[in-house]
């Protein structure tokens, strides 16, 4: 079974599971489950955005939440001012992308890389956090939308079918939409990575200097990757604002940024399905740990297990020590070890080079 056949099998499997979740969940699960899954799907899109930028582009962006938050705030503010969701939806994607393009130009054409890039992106989110966090006063508003500072913006109107502001999308609709967009994003990225562009950004990740000496301009390719990632994060932000009809500055916070990175590491860099799994797994875990607290009474063990940060932290540590590559690549290794000795771990689920095709 060669690489391409395996990839094809993988694609088909993902497609089947994806469609199954998409169409069967609302029929078989109760509304609460559907809503819970909705937010996981939205976050998975966010995870994918970093999977592209970092996992494939090799750009360790510590501030992916900046674009996520910008998307959410853009949608909220535009929505209050316009009422019809088509333009706000597009703005929520375009604005973060534009912001990323500027920031990226500043970074990549300034030849800033690895940990320094991490710090700059982190710093940018913190600036956004601090600024937005201090807009509680009534004087801070854009059009009719009050920024609300720490408390954020509640009661954000939901998306509507393009053109008709009264045909708002209901809760199940949001699930279908989010899941569909997640699937679209996944397969879209698969296409992108199988394209010449995708090959080149992986090449640049592998050996930037060599790519340069072959005549590729790494700055331009990184900038493009960074911008696409930001657009996706913005899209996720828009959907998130819809899901909770709420957005607050914590969306820019350090915790949020680190969380996205963790999803990718846990799931596995250099894969797309990995970060999705990592994201959903960790989200579900923290929700599960928080639910049904045993207070006062109950054994000390119960109390300890209901201590969300403690358990989550322990799991992460155990993870990095035992499954350093991340879930999917490790599973992939095991699987492929059975199939053939050579392992193509680094670009596990990217389709092979388009040679011998057509």
């Amino acid at each position, binding site marked *: 079974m060669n690489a391409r056949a395996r990839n094809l099998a993988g694609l088909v499997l993902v497609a089947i599971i994806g469609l199954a979740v998409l169409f069967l969940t609302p029929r078989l699960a109760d509304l609460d489950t559907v809503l819970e899954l909705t937010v996981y799907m939205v976050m998975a899109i966010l995870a994918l955005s970093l999977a592209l930028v970092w996992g494939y582009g090799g750009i*360790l962006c510590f501030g992916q939440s900046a674009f996520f938050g910008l998307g959410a705030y853009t949608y909220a503010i535009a929505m209050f001012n316009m009422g019809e969701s088509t333009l706000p939806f597009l703005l929520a994607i375009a604005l973060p992308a534009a912001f990323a393009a500027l920031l990226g130009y*500043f970074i990549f054409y*300034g*030849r*800033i890389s690895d*940990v*320094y890039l991490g*710090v*700059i992106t*982190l*710093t*940018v989110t*913190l*600036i956004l956090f*601090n*600024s937005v*966090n*201090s807009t509680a006063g009534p004087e801070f508003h854009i059009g009719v939308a009050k920024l609300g500072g720490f408390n954020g913006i509640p009661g954000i109107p939901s998306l509507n079918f393009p053109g008709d502001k009264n045909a708002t999308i209901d809760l199940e609709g949001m699930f279908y939409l989010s899941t569909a967009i997640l699937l679209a994003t996944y397969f879209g990225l698969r296409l992108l990575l199988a394209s010449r562009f995708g090959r080149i950004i992986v090449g640049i990740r592998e050996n930037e200097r060599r790519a340069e000496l072959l005549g590729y301009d790494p700055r331009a390719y990184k900038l493009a990757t960074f911008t696409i990632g930001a657009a996706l994060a913005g899209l996720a932000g828009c959907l998130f604002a819809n899901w909770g009809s709420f957005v607050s500055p914590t969306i820019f916070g*350090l*915790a949020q940024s*680190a969380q996205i*990175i*963790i999803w990718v*590491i*846990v799931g596995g*860099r250099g894969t797309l399905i990995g970060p999705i799994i990592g994201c959903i797994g960790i989200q579900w875990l923290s929700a599960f740990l928080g639910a049904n607290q045993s207070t006062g009474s109950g054994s000390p063990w119960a*109390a*300890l297990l209901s*201590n*969300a*940060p*403690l*358990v*989550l*932290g*322990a*799991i*992460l*540590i155990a*993870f*990095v*020590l035992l499954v*350093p590559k991340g879930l999917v690549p490790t599973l992939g290794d095991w699987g492929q070890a059975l199939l053939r000795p050579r392992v193509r771990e680094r670009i596990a689920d990217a389709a092979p080079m388009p040679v011998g095709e057509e």
Partner: protein
Amino acid sequence: MDFVALLAIQILYAIASLALISIGLAIIFGMMRVINLAHGEFLMLGGYAAIVATSHGISIWIAMLVVAPVVVGIIGIIVERTIIRFLYGRIIDTMLATWGLSLFLVGLTTAVFGNTTVGISAPLGSFEIGAYRASAYTLFVIAVAIVVLAGVFSVLRWTRLGLIARGTMQNANMAAALGVKPPRVYAVTFGIGAALSGLAGGVLAPVSGVFPTIGVAYVAKSFITVIGGGAAIVSGTASASALFGTVNQIATFATTPVFGEVALLAAAIVLIRLLPQGISGRFFRRGI
């Protein structure tokens, strides 16, 4: 005029506290390329160590200057032996592991000490500058920062330990040549870094109080300071703290704390853009 003097002290204090919370991270990151996301929790633990010790009747000075660093130093070594040592050269994995560690420590402290803010009142009382009064403890913090930086510098510069440490970080064989096991050097270095963080946490406890989640307030700022400072541990940390502290305080006085914070962060971005190697990378080549 008095006010200017007061302002000057506030600026010095801001610089000192930045340097204090950063130096431990600077050593751990600068010498072993480990991005320790649990750094904030090391500071937090230092605070708790100092407070618990004081509440058990130990003199506050001993508690802050001895108990806190020793306790956290030991914790640091345990962490290095049980987690970090498996991850050298895997910068990203250490990030994930230490992030997990930070969550774990927050959860643990909450379980042990509960979640309310605890603290000890600052000793030394206050002093007067003309019409104004300020906490004498401020001056103490400044002094501690100076001593710590000078100490780290001289250890690295003149002692065998420092030589071995610097050597090992450049190449492990050198330490072996000097008849020292690299693993031990790593453990000790990490321990010292942790100890200094503990010291900082202890010294700042009376000022800011301590609660399990206080680490978050520290980690980003110290990380930015360290990177802004660049490779040279002492001169880098010192110069970056000086820059950021001054910017932050002046902006705060002139406007609001928020703007002060934003000004600090903006300064960091500009700095890294202009000097991608950090301040020391530009001005103190091959310095300490």
